């Protein structure tokens, strides 16, 4: 099994480097949509309901494309397209094994595009959603930055930021970044807009701020946000799989476990306030991540 994976990996990297990104541009949103459908189904079963079909997110997107396009101004439509474009770029750069710091910035800029789009309309709910989205970024971005630093320190000397270096580690990333895993998981819960951190835009039938940042988007433009979210789901769980990148089967298992854990967290927690979220993230997960980095320096890997 392992040698087969090595062969496939070698083929993608040396013989046809554009193949994997090209496949992922098509496959990533499908995987994301499937995961979101699974999410809704499992949530329904936890609540004792039958739940929608697994392919429901796909139906939702197809329906939104069949709706009439209504928009208020061209600017916020431009921003939502930027949101999708940069999210795709983040997935492609990750597949190409590029600099993980740049990938993180591209991903952050994608989120900022969504915030700018929400700020480009005059709806008060949209603006409150945007300001809360900024607070979400303030809460989770330090953890992501510390993850990148930890990744850099975990690579063999000379250190490198290249994501492709994850394939050539001596030991899984989890062994050198054990405290960053729960910290990153907390960031995942925020990125997935799950309780207790779903303050900027409700997913599913939860309602917060009417619809928060997505409030003024309708029809095909809302579909663009949905598709970008599918890419994002794929992206954040791929990063989760990187914690065991030396064997991608275990990595995928880790990502799946995190996926199920965040559904349980969503269903067992009530929504909390924005500032509680920031206090929690800076007091708990960020401190864990910092301790991990200090420990890495202490063991002489810095």
């Amino acid at each position: 099994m392992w040698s087969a994976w090595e062969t496939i990996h070698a083929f993608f990297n040396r013989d046809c480097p554009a193949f994997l990104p090209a496949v992922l541009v098509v496959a990533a949103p499908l995987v994301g949509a499937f995961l979101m459908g699974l999410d809704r189904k499992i949530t329904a079963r936890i609540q004792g309901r039958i739940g929608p079909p697994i392919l429901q997110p796909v139906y939702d997107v197809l329906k939104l494309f069949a709706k009439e396009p209504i928009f208020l101004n061209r600017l916020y439509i431009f921003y939502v397209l930027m949101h999708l474009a940069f999210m795709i770029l983040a997935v492609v750069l990750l597949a190409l094994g590029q600099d993980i710091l740049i990938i993180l910035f591209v991903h952050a800029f994608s989120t900022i595009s969504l915030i700018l789009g929400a700020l480009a309309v005059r709806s008060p709910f949209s603006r409150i959603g945007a300001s809360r989205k900024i607070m979400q970024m303030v809460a989770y971005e330090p953890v992501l930055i510390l993850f990148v630093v930890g990744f850099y320190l975990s690579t063999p000397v000379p250190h490198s930021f290249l994501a492709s270096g994850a394939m050539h580690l001596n030991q899984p990333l989890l062994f050198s970044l054990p405290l960053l895993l729960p910290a990153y998981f907390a960031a995942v819960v925020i990125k997935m807009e799950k309780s207790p951190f779903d303050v900027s835009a409700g997913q599913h039938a939860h309602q917060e701020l009417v619809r928060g940042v997505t409030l003024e988007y309708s029809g095909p433009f809302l579909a663009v946000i949905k598709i970008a979210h599918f890419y994002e789901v794929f992206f954040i769980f791929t990063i989760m799989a990187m914690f065991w990148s030396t064997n991608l089967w275990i990595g995928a298992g880790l990502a799946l476990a995190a996926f199920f854990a965040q559904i349980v967290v969503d269903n067992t927690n009530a929504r909390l306030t924005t500032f509680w979220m920031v206090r929690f993230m800076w007091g708990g997960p960020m401190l864990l991540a910092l301790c991990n980095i200090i420990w890495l320096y202490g063991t002489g890997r810095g």
Partner: protein
Amino acid sequence: MKLLAKSPWVVHFNCNSCNGCDIEFLACLTPLYDLERFGILHMGNPKHADILVVTGSVNHRNARVLENTYLQIPDPKVVVALGVCSSTGGIFADCYNVLGGIDQVVPVDVFVPGCPPRPEAIIDGLVQSLGKLEAKRVGKAVPPVTKLVRTFRPPAEPGEKKED
């Protein structure tokens, strides 16, 4: 492929209702009835919705708000009048400020009778509206609306004494 019928999103508008219909509508989202198994989501935002569910009779103050909500929903869209008040005005039909059923203000596609309607009737009404939603998308002729409830006002007899 029936695109719209597979993921209808609902926005619920309380016109002038006594909240009986609203509570019954929310009961449809509970595990016992589980509207989400049809892909139906309760949106709370007309810009994301396909179906406008209205409870309560329309009066002079909220007629404009109802029309505004209706206009914010992107086409194709359907309107479901939930309960007897939104169909005809119900027991409030004779009130000085009540205009009557919501069909005075917005075109209604499905009338769901009852005071309040049972969750089964509400689900039945919503599923009926899905057919009309799909017909509107492909531009087919929408079957005529049947109003199951009618206002009945006995004519005032001449010389009748008013009750105190």
